[in-house]
């Protein structure tokens, strides 16, 4: 690269591996173009294209998966982009989150009178950013992905124009997000200064083969990157935006934030810490373990005292992030597979749970008090039953996917001899169970007189909640095939 050359050599591009990014980005642009050319608004166009793109990416991941499993992972564009099992696995999770968000958004946007074109375009762009993150082999590409993802989400959060909370949430999210991006970028710069490359493979090889006499800069780089990425996945103490943003944002956007953005954030963390910084595990393992423990405890304890269901779920998502980080700190194959399994289950748990919040929220998206859930079992018994499955899954009750996910990460903590962390996490899980029980109690309590409102449940909500609950049950009863997939999806860095 540093050799002067007369002819410009263009890097090799493996187009099929870029398909998901292209599909998401192009359908976003296409949607924007077509709609601006049309004289009359076609209501099904935006959700239709988005849904098609999501489903297409989801299904195209099957042949891509087979190819990667047979031929091994690949890297291209001067090794700055890679495609391995984890890329495809996480891409399909992002596609699933996109699909459920767009299904749920349709009736919501109609109800709230929010212009739907922007929503879907931004969602597609954001998804493209997430996919870029899942395949980044270079810190610069990683940063690009994060920015593409985040900037679109900042706007999405603010999209409920007539709701002051939505604007407030967006400002908070944006300001803190901008800071965290700055932290991340500064961390990247410091790592680059210490190592001399931003390429993940280059960094890994350099760190493995050379001994730094002065590693202070590298350490600060690690720390700043951990702050930046910790913000994206809402780990304590970089979580403070989460409850406000979740509460204020339009509920379908929250699904995207809880499922899609979190998956992308963990994709980045997995690529950077356990893979790239593998030889410096002694320096980052303890900080990550501490963050994970604090997130689990803080998320669980604070969720208990909330009265707003969206806030409860926001704090519980902090606790879930902590659980996932437990798998990250182990930095071995089993732990990483457990992280991927947890992310998979959590995508469905979050989609299904927030789907129900969308319905109960009602006109104006403001009815998220715990009282609003009172008597849900009488009004909509089937919906309450599905929500029960999802809540029990979140609590990690046996025979739900949530339990297997927790089993995996707790095993990884025991494997690395972090017994204390494992114990703290399990006790916090018991505390968090109270959060879900409170929602259950409200659902199955008797209705207060005069509070019976008819809830309109759209078909999309049924589809999303039923599928999510089914996945949560199936992964709980027959986890083996899913565990196999996550073991095959453990990320590997290869140079091209």
């Amino acid at each position, binding site marked *: 690269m540093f050799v002067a050359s007369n002819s410009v050599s263009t890097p090799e591009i493996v187009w099929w591996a870029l398909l998901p990014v292209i599909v998401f980005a192009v359908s976003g642009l296409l949607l924007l173009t077509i709609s601006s050319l049309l004289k009359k608004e076609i209501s099904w166009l935006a959700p239709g294209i988005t849904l098609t793109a999501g489903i297409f990416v989801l299904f195209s991941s099957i042949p891509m998966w087979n190819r990667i499993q047979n031929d091994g992972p690949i890297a291209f564009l001067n090794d700055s982009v890679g495609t391995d099992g984890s890329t495809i696995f996480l891409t399909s999770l992002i596609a699933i989150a996109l699909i459920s968000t767009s299904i749920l958004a349709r009736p919501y946007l109609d109800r709230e009178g929010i212009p739907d074109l922007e929503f879907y375009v931004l969602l597609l762009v954001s998804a493209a950013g997430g996919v870029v993150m899942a395949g980044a082999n270079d810190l610069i590409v990683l940063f690009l992905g994060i920015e593409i993802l985040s900037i679109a989400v900042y706007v999405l959060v603010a999209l409920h124009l007539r709701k002051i909370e939505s604007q407030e949430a967006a400002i908070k999210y944006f300001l803190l997000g901008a800071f965290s991006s700055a932290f991340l970028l500064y961390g990247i710069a410091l790592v680059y200064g210490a190592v001399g490359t931003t390429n993940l493979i280059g960094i890994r090889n350099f760190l493995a083969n050379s001994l730094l006499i002065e590693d202070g800069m590298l350490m600060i780089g690690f720390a700043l990157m951990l702050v930046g990425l910790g913000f994206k996945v809402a780990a304590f103490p970089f979580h403070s935006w989460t409850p406000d943003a979740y509460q204020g944002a339009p509920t379908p956007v929250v699904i995207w934030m809880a499922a899609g953005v979190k998956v992308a954030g963990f994709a980045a963390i997995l690529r950077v810490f356990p893979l790239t910084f593998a030889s410096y595990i002694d320096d980052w393992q303890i900080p990550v373990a501490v963050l994970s423990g604090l997130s689990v405890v803080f998320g669980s304890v604070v969720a208990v005292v909330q009265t707003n269901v969206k806030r409860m779920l926001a704090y519980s998502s902090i606790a879930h992030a902590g659980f996932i980080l437990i798998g990250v700190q182990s930095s071995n194959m089993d732990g990483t597979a457990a992280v991927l399994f947890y992310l998979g289950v959590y995508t469905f748990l979050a989609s299904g749970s927030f789907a129900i919040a969308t319905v109960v929220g009602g006109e104006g998206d403001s009815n998220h008090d715990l009282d609003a859930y009172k008597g849900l079992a009488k009004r909509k018994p089937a919906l309450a039953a599905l929500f029960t499955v999802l809540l029990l899954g979140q609590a990690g009750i046996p025979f739900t996917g949530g339990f297997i996910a927790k089993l995996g990460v707790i095993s990884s903590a*025991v494997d690395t001899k972090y017994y204390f962390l494992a114990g703290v996490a*399990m*006790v916090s899980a018991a505390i968090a169970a109270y959060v879900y029980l409170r929602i259950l109690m409200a659902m*199955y*309590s008797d209705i207060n007189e005069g509070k019976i409102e008819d809830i309109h449940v759209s078909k999309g909500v049924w589809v999303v909640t039923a599928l999510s609950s089914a996945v949560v049950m199936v992964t709980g009863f027959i986890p083996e095939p899913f565990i196999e997939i996550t073991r095959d999806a453990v990320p590997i860095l290869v140079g091209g």
Partner: protein
Amino acid sequence: MSIVIAASSSATFPVLPSLLIVPAAGALVVAFLPRVRKDLTKLVALIFSAITCALSLWLLSDFEYEKHSDMFQFVSRQSWISDFGISWSFGADGISLFLIVLTGLLFPIAFLAVDPEHNDRSYFAWMLLLEAGVMGVFCSLDLIMFFLCFEVVLVPMYFLISRWGHGNRSYAATKFFLFTMAGSALMLVGIITVAFLHADSVGGSITFDLVEIAESQSISRGTARWLFLTFALAFAVKIPIFPLHTWLPDAHTEAPTAGSVILAGVLLKLGTYGLIRFGLYLFPEASHFFAPVFLTLGVVGIIYGAVVAAMQKDLKRLVAYSSIAHLGFIVLGTFALNTEAIVGSVLQMVNHGISTGALFLLVGMIYERRHTRQIDELGGLQHSAPLMAGFFTVVMLSSIGLPGLNGFVGEFLILLGTFTAHRWWAVVATVGVVLAALYLLWAYQRVFHGPAEKENAEMTDLKTRETLVLLPLLALIVFLGVYPKPVINRMENSVKTLVVHIEKHVSGFEEPVNRQSLGEIKIDIQQAEEGH
């Protein structure tokens, strides 16, 4: 029924897995019965629980108790998550056998005895799911499987209390759920650690197989003691051992009658059974080390439960506190670590299930008629309901431990064994027997004797259905009291194997046995004199 009988003739029929599958399938069927056929719900639930009961009885009849070589019978194994070494692994021995049968018997009785007040389908579905979970606990030979079942029973019980309970039911249900879940939180970490350490020291892949881990005893002594505590905490909450008992009176009092019957009859045994199977067997050295603590807590529970029970104004709460006392006896016997006491404990688990189950049924029947459980408001019921008074007398006397009834046999064996091993604990525990007579007879006197006023005088006696429900329990009470030999025979070998296992793995520990021959005692005296 004919299908079951036909299947039973084949030797390889997986009877233990079907004990889980039948009620679980029943729960599904009941949950999806058409809403219009409400009349079918109870019948279908009854059929499934009756099949389960038949299966458990078949297990009883096929159990070979003369066999010494194999500890577990009817073993079956099916891999679940091979990467983690988790399998559906089942087996029964003399310790779990009668608890399985007890579970099989109590559920149909609870179905027959009490009808839910509303939402029949979900009520019966939860009940059947509960039965599947309980069976899973008693049959599991895989640590994770055991934990799964141990934990999953919380969900049906939570819903049963919170939806069909009385008064402050959602508080009681939540307290029950959180106490037990918090208690068992660390057990999961303990289980995983056991498996990892075992795999580390033995080599090979991770396994959660109970027999393999317990027989190899590969974990170092200090670590094993810590791990034992994580298990013991979960069981102590479930049993419950004083001072972790505070959830029990609430849960019992607010639960629907059938819920109380199952809670007292079966669910509390999950903890005491766990102590034997996953305490003594898995961690013999640690159990021996911590035995004095548990003996003391057991005795404290006996006295505390009895004293508090005597103070109760609510009849159901009184029975709940009496459970704490009875379970104190079971804990005491378990940690006496000799054959008599452990057999006594296992027998007492069954006895307590029968007697307390029957007591809760009777209290439920009184409540159904009088809509109160306050002892003050009852009185003279024997005039209006002589039959009920008769049943109550027998059940109460069995609970006190009157010779000739089942409670006596269990308590006697426990006290005998404990006396041999730890004299003073047994002496204090005996006070508990006297106290039990005090609070139960006093309660009986206030409820059934004296003049009957107004509503008490007009109370109807037992209906035929209720009599039929109580009769089998009464028969068992008398049978186990008069002729407990066949039951004890079936338990004894397994318990002996367990005690030998403890002896083998605890250096310097010998089973404290009753010195029956005079010669041995003489030698002791001689030695003592020479010492002076």
